[in-house]
């Protein structure tokens, strides 16, 4: 029962996907900087920093 690659077209290593989930980040919103549009951990971190920034601004 070979299982095809999931339809998820977002490219990120398993640990990065986990990190994003745990941080409540939807990977589709993150700007990738890795090769082939791969999302790196730093990209998620940058997104988090940005989001935090936006949040504190809106206060």
């Amino acid at each position, binding site marked *: 029962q070979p299982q095809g*690659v999931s339809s998820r077209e977002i490219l990120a290593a398993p640990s990065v996907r*986990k990190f994003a989930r745990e941080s409540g980040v939807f990977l589709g919103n993150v700007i990738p900087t890795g*090769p082939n549009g791969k999302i790196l951990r730093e990209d998620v971190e940058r997104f988090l920093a940005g989001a935090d920034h936006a949040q504190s601004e809106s206060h």
Partner: protein
Amino acid sequence: MVVGELTEEVDVLVIGAGPGGYVAAIRAAQLGKTVTVVDKADLGGVCLNRGCIPSKALISAAHHYEAASASPYPGIETTAKLDYTKVQAWKQSVVDKMTGGVKTLLKGNKVNVIQGEVFFSKPDEARVMTETEGHSYRFNHCIIATGSRPIELRSIPFSKRVISSDEALSLDQVPESLIVIGGGYIGIELGQTFAKFGANVTILEGTDSILPLFEPQLSRLVQRNLKKYNVNVVTKAMAKSVEEDETGVTLTYALGEETHTVRASFVLVTVGRRPNTEELGLDTIGVKLTDKGLIDVDEKCRTNIPNIYAIGDIVPGAALAHKASYEGKVAAEVIAGHESAVDYRCIPAVVFSDPEIATVGLSETDAKAENRDVSVGRFPYAANGRAVALNADEGFVKLIADKQSGLLLGAQVIGTEASNLIAELALAIELGATLEDVALTIHAHPTLGEMVMESAEVALGSPIHVVVR
């Protein structure tokens, strides 16, 4: 419920101690939960008792028997004598070792183990029937992991000589002759194993090829190997009825318009497996099923009933032990409050046939069906020094990658140790590796893994060890 009977409170109740359930129980306990796991049969489930482990033990014994019966090495003359009763005892010792391990692991992780059959009485309550009594348990969370069982053919019901994989794995003798109905991976693994042990084997397959879920390039090599043991493979054959007597069974099957009969000591029916969902009382509590009778779950392994989770063979997806275990971890982690989810790009699948088959991700056929532009790289075992030095130069490694980006999408391996070569390829897909990543990674010489690197180079157009035309 018996009047005055106490209802015990449990935090996490796991139903079924197969590779789904026992792994879920251990992970939940590791994360601080108090866990009770209930199984009506043996710890380890189908996988350890009547599936993966005993089948692979017999397969490896058959391989050793075959290699010693007719040595593939010139200059090493060998003989082999089979005492199948002892092989069975050894197989059982392997099973006992692994199930004993599960028992130790559950204990070591302070999981409470109960033997009994579970039925849901309420959405947060289950009744456990042991041989002598019944008990009710109120749970905060429940994980259903009751697995699957062999499908029985209505026209060819199980009997003394019409058996499932359960009995086939425990026969105390090698049957003189065996008819296998169903040429999927379980039928092929077992049919080929008994053929190696000397049985006269016939395999009936309904579609036009054995291992129909795999590409013809793969199944063809297995089919060729089956010829070595005079296995009679009949494709497009529909088993119709069976007559059993003292000494054997006569099976009638249709081949197009024609009707044929074949006689053997046993008929082994391996036409698929059915999820164990019917007798759990799922309807009582309203658990939603798919139209195939599987439990409907989301990516956190949650059913439609709050706090009831389901994993393994009873939920959609490949019915494989490693999928069950993966989901077991996810369910346990979600229950413990983690942000886990079923979130893999690929699941490898292995057939322990001879030669071994291992696949992961997209095949070339899938890619064509999806109209995807892909690069394909194929490298033969015959051009790999290690394979030749191992006297095992049959097979190939094949990679499928996105044409434009080079991203690895899938891989198929057939040949010796395919089961171990697929690990690198699954990791490559998970990590979003490209053909270049694989080709530029140094692979030790002389190892079979070099074929992975070289097939990436083939796909890239500049392989060293095959000539490009």
